[in-house]
């Protein structure tokens, strides 16, 4: 059984008073996410990718269809904590998700809510801070940290729950390049060393290119669902969905159109340079 499975999921926001019902945001999504996977979800603004993220830990409940997390239907109100313990969520603005006035207290927040014994909380907080390399800041006030550090604290607050999956809704959108790099490295390390599934909602192509699997969403539907190499070879389809393609992939696409014999799965610069050298030899 897959960790998360979405079966024919549709969603529209409830109608406001005196208005027509909200437009359909998600339309018949079928998707499965396995344990230990690193999935990037791409889509332009309004493609429904953030709404999709919120369905994965029962912040929103699908209007049609079901979402199962580890076999639990997210519609079951009494299993809410079970779902949220398994699927953690990190949001875009690091300032708006830190609750406490001290870093380690914030990391402990979820564990305190779950009612774990003090010794266990201490152990997990230390582990989580070590996993995001923020141990030395344990007793600092969060407002003194950089954006990247705050976002790592937020991630630590989630992984302290030992979830099976972390969903991140554009976690790097408000960070500078250095903060983005810190967060991406942290996520990759968590995925490799701790086997945590990562669902990364993003609009940065270079971040998506580092995932194992890329899901492209457009107008509430899954447009593409494949490894990054394959996804980025569909240059026209992506451009049609309002998305950019990594430069290297675009170059290779143009060259292929011009009749140069290049493999279709080149997405980063090194591979591109390598392939071009092969041809020029």
């Amino acid at each position: 059984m897959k960790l998360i499975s979405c079966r024919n999921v549709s969603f529209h926001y409830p109608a406001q008073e005196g208005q027509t019902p909200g437009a359909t945001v998600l339309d018949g999504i079928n998707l499965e996410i396995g344990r230990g996977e690193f999935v990037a979800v791409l889509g332009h603004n309004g493609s429904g990718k953030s709404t999709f993220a919120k369905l994965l830990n029962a912040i929103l409940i699908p209007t049609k269809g079901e979402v199962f997390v580890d076999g639990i239907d997210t519609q079951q109100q009494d299993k809410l904590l079970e779902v949220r313990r398994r699927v953690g969520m990190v949001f875009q603005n690091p300032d708006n998700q830190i609750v406490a006035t001290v870093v380690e207290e914030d990391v402990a927040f979820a564990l305190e809510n779950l009612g774990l014994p003090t010794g266990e909380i201490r152990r997990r907080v230390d582990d989580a801070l070590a996993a995001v390399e923020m141990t030395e800041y344990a007793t600092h006030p969060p407002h003194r940290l950089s954006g990247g550090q705050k976002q790592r604290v937020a991630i630590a607050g989630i992984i302290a729950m030992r979830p099976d999956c972390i969903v991140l809704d554009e976690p790097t959108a408000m960070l500078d390049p250095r903060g983005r790099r810190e967060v991406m490295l942290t996520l990759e390390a968590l995925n490799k060393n701790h086997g945590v599934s990562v669902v990364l909602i993003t609009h940065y192509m270079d971040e998506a290119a580092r995932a194992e699997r890329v899901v492209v969403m457009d107008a509430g539907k899954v447009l593409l669902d494949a490894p990054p190499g394959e996804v980025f070879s569909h240059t026209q389809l992506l451009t049609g969905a309002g998305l950019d393609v990594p430069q290297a992939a675009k170059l290779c696409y143009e060259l292929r159109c011009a009749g140069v014999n290049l493999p279709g799965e080149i997405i980063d610069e090194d591979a591109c340079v390598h392939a071009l050298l092969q041809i020029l030899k």
Partner: protein
Amino acid sequence: MKLSDITIGQHFPGQSPVHLMDPRAKIVVTGAYIVMLFLAQNLLSLLVGAVFVLITYPASGIALRLILKSLKPVLPIIIFTGILNLFFVSGEPLWEFWRLSITAEGIRLAVHMCLRIVCLIAGSALLTYTTSPIALTDGLEALFSPLKKIKAPVHEIVMIMTITLRFIPTLIEETGKIMSAQKARGADLESGNILQRMRAMLPILIPLFVSAFRRAEELALAMESRCYHGGEGRTRLRVLAFSGVDVWAAVFTIAFVFAVVAINISGPALGIPGTLR
């Protein structure tokens, strides 16, 4: 004053016996100290209260001149109280001028009242100087938790306090940004009379409120994502525990309360004039 200079309940970390006290004990001792000040009925017993502060400040490694700093904002109140008591207490006049008169009782009462305010401020300031905001809120929650039995929302109030403390720096930073943004658009915040300046604050307050509401909504989502479901069944990372220091502090405080009460009672017999009554 720069916006970033604003601190609420300034805290000086340290390892002194006072710092090491359990926050619950510190809150109770502060409460007892305030009661002690109000019990004091003559100047000598009030001086005992002043001695309490003069001992506890050095014991916690906090410089005594910080008392002056914490008195600054209440200085007008102290002066006002002093003058009021000096001139408007009836008794044997020592000195008369026009329709004002100063009496011995008036002088005593004025000194008593001023000294009481000074001690009050100094004593409660020491609590925030030596206790981190988080320890303070933990202590308050623990002390007031019996009220949960009568359905008082103790946990919720403490949660609100914690989040407020957490967001004060964030909102101050944001206010600075909005002010810069509005100035860049030509907003004039510094000139004009009070009414004009208050009007000029509107374009700063409105964006600030809008953003605060948006932040609150996101924070609520983030808290729910982290399994927050109220105070029920919640455990804590840090567990409060009393230690030897707290016992000594209790003994010390009780001794002072006794001294104050004893001087109150024996005051008339020793010929110390009472200032109250």
